[in-house]
């Protein structure tokens, strides 16, 4: 299974990747992007087939909400990929906005491997 992590913090991308491994998910490859635009470039590139996307909310150039909208409005190859937000933005209005844009799950920082299992388990093979 291939996972795309979209976060402007390289440290956070490492921590999310470590969390996925600690949650015992069978991950074949983790792809990384530093903002929503880079995430779209990965998805639309030659090596862009992924099974799950984890995205931060606040990022420069293209934020997580705009990124979700672009993925859901994208080609049939990418517009059904499950997307979970991994962010400190856990307020009700933010969750509703992300859901309306097409998010499939929400993981609030700080998260634990068990929280990742609970939210992402249904998407993992």
């Amino acid at each position, binding site marked *: 299974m291939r996972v795309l992590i979209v976060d402007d*913090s*390289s*440290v*956070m991308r*490492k*921590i999310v990747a*470590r969390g996925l491994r600690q949650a015992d998910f069978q991950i074949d490859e983790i792809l990384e992007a530093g903002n929503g635009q880079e995430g779209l470039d990965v998805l639309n590139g030659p090596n862009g087939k992924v099974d799950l996307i984890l995205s931060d909310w*606040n990022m420069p150039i293209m934020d997580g909400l705009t990124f979700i909208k672009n993925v859901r409005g994208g080609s049939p190859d990418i517009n059904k990929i499950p997307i979970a937000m991994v962010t*400190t*933005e*856990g*307020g*009700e*209005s933010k969750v509703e906005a992300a859901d309306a844009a097409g998010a499939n799950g929400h993981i*609030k*920082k*700080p*998260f*634990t491997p068990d929280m990742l299992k609970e939210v992402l388990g249904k998407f993992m093979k």
Partner: protein
Amino acid sequence: MKEEMASLTMKKEFASLIKEAVHDVFLTFLDTEVIPGPMIAKKEDDTYRPPETEVTVIINFSGGINGGVHLASPLHLSLKLASLFSGEEYDTLLGEAGDGFGELGNMIAGGLQTRLERFGEINLTPPTIISGTDYHMQYKTNFDSIKQYFKCPEGPFYIEFFFWAG
């Protein structure tokens, strides 16, 4: 609500919530022991000189609570905590280490945000880092604050929670 927030009872509760948030983050991401120390409750313009710190992460709150969180520590501790957080070794706070220490503050602030939901939805700003010792931080005069001190094997740090108390 504002009078309630300024009360010592409420400040003790805030300190307790800070301790929970810090404990969660340290347990989950740093795998290191953290021991709470004293809580200092004061008006920001009271005279009090905290132990010297060299790096301060600032995350501001708006919405249900206006104010924010500071994570402050000596430089050597901020580097060590950033290293424990990311799994990399750092000798300068510039670049990824600063991002890591900022994200650590962000996670603690996020944990506190979750625990303060009864005050309404709280928005967080991205972390900002101030390095150095020779500066004075000043809030609006109607802000109140508490500082909760901690100690981990690598050194001391504190979390300050400042808030508009009316």
